């Protein structure tokens, strides 16, 4: 038991070393790229060609196969950034800040994709592409928080200087995540409540949610692969003055 605990701490300590993390990311990367490609390809064909149409919306409901994964990722990425920010603020591990910095643009892109795909679906279904209901507005605020974090980081000449401010802003921004999640149950909204909950059966048949599950997993794998890839470049950039980087790029 004690030996196992020491082994775990050793692993965490090693993870904090940029050189070791750089190598680990390189080793993990191919598996995630392949998983993402397979899941997204199978999920896309299944969801667009083989899953049944909806009885009310026909084929336009298929936008959920992009909308739902994008919206889930927009929030998951922010939670991952929050975790990294806490690790950075408490344990002063530089790598955690690097990870948070490479994740932010992807999260912003997913938020924008969620808003855009929702607007496209809203025109035929609701009869409007935008309304100031609590879900749509809180998601728009999330996009602004992402942009604010990216802009704040960009405002500092050296990444090490802005790290602390960005981490604090991320912690402030995380308050919006439960608001997004519960907006549809706390207030009257035009957006429908969640189809998937942990406690109840999905309000959707298996032939519809199976491809959706593949798409969500595919998005997660794509995010992981991209983060590993970008983290490697970020490590090289920030550690460019160390000996091992000079030797690695030579």
């Amino acid at each position, binding site marked *: 038991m004690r030996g196992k605990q020491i082994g775990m701490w050793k692993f965490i300590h090693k993870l904090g070393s940029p050189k070791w993390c750089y190598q680990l990311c390189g080793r993990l990367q191919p598996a995630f790229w392949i998983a993402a490609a397979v899941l997204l390809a199978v999920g896309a064909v299944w969801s667009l060609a083989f899953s*049944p*149409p*909806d*009885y*009310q*919306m026909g084929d336009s*409901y298929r936008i*959920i196969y992009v909308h739902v994964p994008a919206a889930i990722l927009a929030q998951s990425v922010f939670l991952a950034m929050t975790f990294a920010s*806490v690790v950075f*603020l*408490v*344990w002063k591990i530089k790598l955690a800040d690097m990870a948070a910095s490479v994740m932010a643009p992807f999260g912003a892109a997913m938020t924008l994709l969620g808003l855009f795909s929702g607007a496209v679906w809203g025109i*035929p*279904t*609701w*009869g*409007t592409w935008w*309304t*100031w*209901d*609590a879900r749509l507005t809180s998601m728009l605020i999330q996009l602004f928080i992402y942009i604010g974090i990216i802009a704040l980081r960009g405002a500092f000449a050296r990444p090490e200087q802005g790290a602390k401010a960005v981490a*604090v802003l991320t*912690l*402030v921004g*995380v*308050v*919006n995540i439960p*608001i997004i999640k519960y907006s549809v149950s706390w*207030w*009257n*909204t*035009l957006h*429908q*409540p*969640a*189809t998937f909950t942990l406690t109840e059966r999905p*309000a*959707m*048949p298996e*032939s*519809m949610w199976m491809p959706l599950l593949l798409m969500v997993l595919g998005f997660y794998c794509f995010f992981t692969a991209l983060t590993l890839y970008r983290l490697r470049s970020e490590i090289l950039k920030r550690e460019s003055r160390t000996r091992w980087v000079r030797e690695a790029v030579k």
Partner: protein
Amino acid sequence: MRLQRKRRLTIIAGLVALVAIAVGLTLYALRANIDLFFTPSQIAAGDAPHDRTMRLGGVVKDGSVQRDPDSLAVSFVVTDFAQDVPVRFDDILPDLFREGQGVVVIGTLGDDGDFAAQQVLAKHDENYMPPEVAEALKATNSLPEGAGNSAG
């Protein structure tokens, strides 16, 4: 060192808690404004403003839709199964509009209790199903409340 980390963690937890309380209080104070629409019951209780643009939300009452054969004019009743509000509208309805469907209507409430609509939005619920399943459920009369009918 360990003590310092513990202190930092406490400061972080405190910061997040303070921001959450501030935002929570703001949202609580603004709760009436964050709701997208008034329900027919709220209107019956006199909570909704008269002669000002507002939103009304509810379900289109079964058998209440009456279309004018010569124009786009349509009238229907929005209900929350407790109170009813009659609505008049003179424009294009969204595809999903049908009896039994949830709608959000933007317009003004007249002094006579009639709602003059400027725009009608259809609300989609969280249920998705293939047409065959919906047909089968309809045959046994067990389609979920407010899910409308498939003959749209």
